[in-house]
């Protein structure tokens, strides 16, 4: 395993009574692609800004290569950032934007300020523009570029300084869906090619799962779970993570024995162990892990209340004893029909109860939830607001 590069130790960030970060402990390995994932206001951008040096934690330490860097200003950190909406310099063209960091004299080992020779600047900028596929654009004013091109300039501008870590603050938030998918692949390629640590902030769970080595799910200023995308998806630690990552039916259950969980008074085989006998738990069942069978053969029986065609599958909402489930299936079941379901033991995931229990997992207001997800996208305003006006509250 590669070595540890950055560590946040018990970091707290608060403005008066408002706690934005609540004892964050986190380490980031060299060359890792780590994503901070969470809804707006969860503290992910604050965490990123602490790493970037724009904020200083109220309590706790931030270590870089083992050294404490709490008080090191941003311009002295071996870290560069790609900002929300890029923050390109409007008065400079593409070349000068990318060359900006290279033109700042840097202290060498003896502490003398050294400027890079113009030839080297030119060479490095052109190389970087090639890496981000912007060759030939160097004379353009940045305002004449499309969103995707501006994004690439922002990435090139940061990477040309050869940082050890690149921080990306919702870099794809302003792009449309297709471009976002392309850029995801491109970012991953750049990260692997240049062998740089990426710390990526997003609220988009698909993006997080697709790109990351490690995902850090945050909510309410706390880390909810750290793990690989597969861990996070398959073994969510609590109802919040289960709901936030992918689609989940979260049902109250009782652990009757190791490998046996009871839902709606029926016992199901599962793989989870180590709970107390008769302990109340949250049970996660992913919509794609449910098989629809004849009513008679079903472990549970319910009524279809709505069906939506999604291309690859039908999103079918089924009412079981007043609790609505989402089931994703290739079989079409018309609205109103009675069906049964079967769930394999590995399709059931049992979680300890948490304060998120009972808040998620019911699909009785399914369509609205989709709208909420859409509405949550342009979230930067809220997060900035919490930083800026937080002083006052």
């Amino acid at each position: 395993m590669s070595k540890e590069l950055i560590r946040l130790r018990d970091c707290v960030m608060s403005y008066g009574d408002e706690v934005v970060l609540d004892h964050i402990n986190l380490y980031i390995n060299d060359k890792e692609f780590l994503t901070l994932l969470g809804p707006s206001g969860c503290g992910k951008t604050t965490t990123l800004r602490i790493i970037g040096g724009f904020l200083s934690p109220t309590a706790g330490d931030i270590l870089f290569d083992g050294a404490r860097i709490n008080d090191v200003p941003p311009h002295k950190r071996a870290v560069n950032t790609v900002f929300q909406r890029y923050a390109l310099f409007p008065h400079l063209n593409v070349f000068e934007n990318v060359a900006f960091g290279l033109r700042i004299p840097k202290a060498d080992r003896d502490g003398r300020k050294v400027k890079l020779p113009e030839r080297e600047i030119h060479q490095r900028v052109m190389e970087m523009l090639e890496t981000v596929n912007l060759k030939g654009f160097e004379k353009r004013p940045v305002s004449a570029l499309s969103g995707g091109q501006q994004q690439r300039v922002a990435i090139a501008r940061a990477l040309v300084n050869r940082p050890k870590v690149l921080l990306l603050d919702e870099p794809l938030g302003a792009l449309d869906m297709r471009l976002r998918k392309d850029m995801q692949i491109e970012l991953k390629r750049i990260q692997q090619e240049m062998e740089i640590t990426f710390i990526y902030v997003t609220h988009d769970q698909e993006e997080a799962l697709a790109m990351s080595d490690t995902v850090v799910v945050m909510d309410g200023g706390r880390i909810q779970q750290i793990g690989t995308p597969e861990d996070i998806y398959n073994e969510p630690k609590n109802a919040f993570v289960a709901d936030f990552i992918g689609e989940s039916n979260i049902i109250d259950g009782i652990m009757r024995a190791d490998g046996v969980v009871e839902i709606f008074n029926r016992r199901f085989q599962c793989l989870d162990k180590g709970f107390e006998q008769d302990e109340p738990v949250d049970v996660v069942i992913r919509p794609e892990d449910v098989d629809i069978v004849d009513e008679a053969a079903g472990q549970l029986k319910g009524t279809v209340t709505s069906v939506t065609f999604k291309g690859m599958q039908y999103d079918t909402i089924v009412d079981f004893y007043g609790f609505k489930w989402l089931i994703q299936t290739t079989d079409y079941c018309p609205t109103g029909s009675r069906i049964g379901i079967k769930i394999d033991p590995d399709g059931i995931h049992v979680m300890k109860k948490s304060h998120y229990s009972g808040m998620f997992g019911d699909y009785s207001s399914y369509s609205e939830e989709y709208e909420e997800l859409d509405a949550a996208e342009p979230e930067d305003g809220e997060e900035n607001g919490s930083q800026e006006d937080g002083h006052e509250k």
Partner: protein
Amino acid sequence: MKRSSRVGSRIFIGLTFLFLYLPILLLIVFSFNAGDSSAVWRGFSLDWYKALFQNRLIMESLYTTLLVSLLSTAIATAAGTFAAIGLYSLSKRRRDALLVVNDIPMMNADIVTGVSLCLFFVAFFQGWGAFAQWFNGVQSAVELPVRLTLGFGTMLLAHIAFNIPYVILNVAPKLRQMDKNLVDAAQDLGCTWMQAFWKVILPEIKPGIVSGALIAFTMSIDDFVISYFTAGSSTSTLAMRIYSMTKKRITPEVNAVSTLLFLSVLALLVLNNVREIRQERRTDRQELRGPSFFENLSMRLSSPAWKWARRGGLAAAACVFVAAVALLTGAAWSQPVVNVCSWGEYIDEDLITQFEDATGIRVNYQTAESNEALYSLLKSGGADYDVIVPSDYMISQLLEEGMLEELDYSQIPNFEKIDPRFRNLPYDPENKYTVPYTWGTMGLIYNANMVDGELDSWGALYDGRYAGSVLLINNSRDALGAALLHLGHSVNTTDEAEIREAFALISDASRRGVFQGKVMDQVFQKMEGGNAAIASYYAGDYLSMLDNQADGVDLRYVIPEEGANWFVDAMCVLKDAPHYGEAMQWINFIASTEANLANMDYIWYASPNTEALERYPAWYEAEYGEELDPELYEIMAAPAEVLERCEMYLVLPPETRALYNELWIELGV
């Protein structure tokens, strides 16, 4: 229906703009007038512009104006820009509150700002004086100046103070538009905050800074009221100079300088607007095609190869600026100075230059509006004049209050040339404090084409036959003086009954609608243009009206049979004058025969110098190649038998002065 309303609205718009711009248009047209009338067009000429550039007082004030505007703009722009940036690092609520506070000085009445700044400076000077005295007492290494006065420095501070809000107002929107992450981005890329400021913030908000600076500059050039209260007695801006020039009459020279001022402010505004429009267009264009020629140029100029050239240019500009300031202030401080306060249009300005060339003493020549204004200026303590030129009765008053210094007549040999008639006058019986400057009479001026026959009585002023065409002088002493003379009383009477009788004469005439109005300076235009028939005014001013009278106007001057007032304006030195020796030199120079001749020719008030009075007709003939009309000369310099019929104003006891004031207020407007 619709059509007619559209025509109506167009006419309305036309009238509105006419109302807005016609006066300015008139001013510009008359600045090219060949004659020196402000009412009658006598053909095109550029003479007034030529005169303007030769007028050292105007040029000096122009210099002051430019210097104070440039300096205050530069300082206010820097301070305002940083203030705006500071504002933007505050929370929104505090920032908005502060921006409202920022608006208040701009909305505030100038006069309030001016008076408050003046008060503040004077209070500070008092505190400073006490401190400096104490400080000089306890140590002797450094000698602090004890007495500070209003002057260029205080005016500069005032200009900086009122300019800063305009800069903030212009810079703030640019900061609001700026992506906040830009500074973070620059710091992230290795800049310190200061580097980020120069490399990122400044280019982003530059348009706001430039327009803020342009507006501040315009405001500074334009300002009159605040400068008036903070400049003290020894500094004048162009606007203040123009104001003092209009006190007597609006000469076309004022038109010319106002025209230039209007055009330069207009140019600044146009420049600012064009810049903004071009910027908008450029951002639009930029999105369509590549960089324009200018952008290429500016990119090339901002490339490192040009950096040294740019730095050199900047350094050179800074050097020139510093040198200019140093030269000006240095010249002002190292040279001996004399501060003179006189009346507007009351000296041949060549004399100032001659005196400066001959002695190396710089003359700081200021003007006051009236004896009363001068008095209150002196009382307020803001003035630091050496030489003043008050009239007889005001001299008495100043002497009573111990405000004048005795003169050293051994340093004023030219005093010998003053005619004995003008020595030891009642205001200075032993002649220890004064050297006469001019003298004259105040008589009746009338338009012979508007009255029946020749007038020779003050009674004409109250004559119902001339109802609506008599101008009453707007000055209680002169107005009541004429009435007292008409009734056969002394102008210096302290008898309340006599004064009330004279007042009754005036108020009765007023009720009968005899007076067209109460005037001072407007008397010139009204009489010259034939808009009024009768007025009482000074002989010297009658002569200049005569020069400007319109066709069909026939102005006459008469000392009425009841007698008239005669006056002397004399040079005095204020107690504790900082430049006493220089003041003596100045007084001696002005008392010389040559200076008296030049002044007499320029201002047409009679000289008290015996030689000058004798030689003037011959001098005039040599100068202009024509004979001086002896009748006119007698009006200017009244012969002894006429002067005998005239009475000089004496200072009145306080209770009589109070009565005058009370009656004058009762008369109303």
